[in-house]
C-alpha cells in the first residue's frame, strides 16, 4: 500500500517538476481562458446586468475549451519518449500510474482554471458573494473533465494529429458537465442553492474516478502494441 502511494507521489512529482521547467505549456490554457472570457464584454456590451446573464455560459464554455486544449498533452509526451512503455513494464499497476498522471494533470490545468474563474467572473460583473460557489463548481467539473479526457487522450495516442479527433470524442460526453456546471454557476450568481447541480458534477467525477483510469490503461496498452 505504502509503495503504491510513494509510486503515485513520484509520478506526480515528476510531472509537476517538468511543468515548472516548461511553463509555457502550463500557461497556454489559462491564457486562452482569460482571453476568451475578456473578449465577450468587448463584443457584447459593457452593461453589467446583461454580462451577469451570460456569465455562466461564457465561463463554462471558456473553461471547457481551455481544458480540452490541455488534455491533448496529457499522455502525448510520455508516449513519444517511451515513458508510457516503461510504466506499462514497471511491474506496477498501469491503471494506478495513469490515475496519478491524471491527478497531476488536474493539479496543473483544472485547479488553476478553478482558481482563475473568480477573477474572470469578476470581469463579467458577478458579485463577490458568488465566487466560492463558482470556483467550487469549476473545480469539480474539471475533475470529471480531466478523467473523461484521460480516456480520449489514451484512445487517440496511436493517431498522428489526434487533436481534432480528441475534441470530437470528448465534447459530446462533456455536454452534461457543461449544462450542470453552467447551472451551478447561474445559481451561485442568483444566490440560490447549488446542491443539485453540484451533486450531479460530483457523481460524474466519482464515476470517472472509478472507471476512467481502467479504460485509459486498456487504451494505452493497445496503443503500445
Amino acid at each position, binding site marked *: 500500500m505504502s509503495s503504491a502511494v510513494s509510486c503515485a507521489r513520484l509520478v506526480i512529482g515528476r510531472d509537476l517538476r517538468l511543468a515548472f521547467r516548461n511553463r509555457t505549456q502550463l500557461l497556454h490554457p489559462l491564457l486562452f481562458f482569460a482571453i476568451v472570457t475578456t473578449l465577450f464584454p468587448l463584443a457584447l456590451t459593457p452593461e453589467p446586468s446583461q454580462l451577469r446573464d451570460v456569465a455562466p455560459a461564457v465561463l463554462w464554455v471558456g473553461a471547457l475549451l481551455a481544458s480540452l486544449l490541455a488534455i491533448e498533452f496529457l499522455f502525448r509526451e510520455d508516449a513519444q519518449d517511451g515513458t508510457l512503455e516503461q510504466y506499462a513494464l514497471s*511491474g506496477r499497476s498501469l491503471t494506478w500510474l495513469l490515475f496519478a498522471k491524471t491527478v497531476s494533470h488536474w493539479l496543473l490545468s483544472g485547479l488553476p482554471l478553478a482558481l482563475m474563474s473568480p477573477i474572470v467572473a469578476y470581469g463579467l460583473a458577478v458579485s463577490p458573494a458568488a465566487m466560492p460557489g463558482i470556483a467550487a463548481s469549476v473545480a469539480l467539473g474539471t475533475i470529471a473533465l480531466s478523467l473523461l479526457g484521460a480516456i480520449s487522450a489514451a484512445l487517440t495516442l496511436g493517431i498522428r494529429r489526434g487533436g481534432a479527433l480528441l475534441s470530437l470524442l470528448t465534447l459530446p460526453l462533456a455536454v452534461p458537465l457543461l449544462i450542470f456546471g453552467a447551472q451551478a454557476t447561474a445559481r451561485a450568481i442568483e444566490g440560490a442553492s447549488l446542491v443539485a447541480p453540484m451533486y450531479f458534477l460530483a457523481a460524474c467525477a466519482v464515476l470517472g474516478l472509478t472507471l476512467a483510469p481502467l479504460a485509459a490503461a486498456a487504451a494505452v496498452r493497445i496503443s503500445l502494441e
Partner: protein
Amino acid sequence: MSAHRLSGDSLHVFRGERHVLRGVSFVAEGGDYLEVTGSNGAGKTSLLRTIVGLVHAESGRVRWNGLDIHADAGAFHAQLAYLGHESPLKADLTPRENLHFAIGIRRRVGGDEIARALAETGANGFADRPVRTLSAGQRRRVALAGVVLAAVPLWVLDEPATHLDAEGHALVGRLVDRQRAEGGIVIAAVHAPLPVAGAGTRRIGLTLQ
C-alpha cells in the same frame, strides 16, 4: 535462488497484414546471452516486444520460469528491464532526476546508488545537465545506467550500443557479462556483435519475411 529460465515456443507475430515472426523458438537460462540478429525490418524489435509482453503473439507462448508471461504480467515485469531503441528520458530533467523518478517507481533507490550507476556507465560528467543538452550517445549511457539500477534478472535490450563510441561498446559488453555472471539473462537485438564472453552465447537469426 533457483536459476531463471525464459523460453518461447514457435512464436508467430503479425504486424498489420505482415507475418513478421514465423515460428521463432528459443530458450535462455541464467547466465545466457541471447543475441538477436537480422536485417532491417526482419522483426528484431517485434520479437523483443513480444518477449516483454507489449505485443501479443498470434500463436505460441513466452514463458518465464515455466509460467506464461501474460498469466501474471505484473510479477514478470517486476523482474524485467526493457530498453527500447529510444532512450526513455525526459529532456527537461537531468540524468540524476530521470533515474530518480524512473527507478523509484520500481523500487526504493538512494542518491548514492544512482551516482554509482552513472559513474559506472561513464555518465557522471553530465549527471546534472538537462538531458536536452546531451548527445544521443550520452543519453544512451544514462539509459544503460537505468537498466543497471533496475537490479532485475532479465534484461531485454534493443540495440543497446547504438550511438555509442568504441569504449561504449566495450562498456555494454562488460555490463552484459556481469549481469550473466550474477545469474541473469540478457537478450539483445544488435547489428554488430557485442564484445561478450563466448560461453553461453546463443544466436537467433531472423530473416526478412
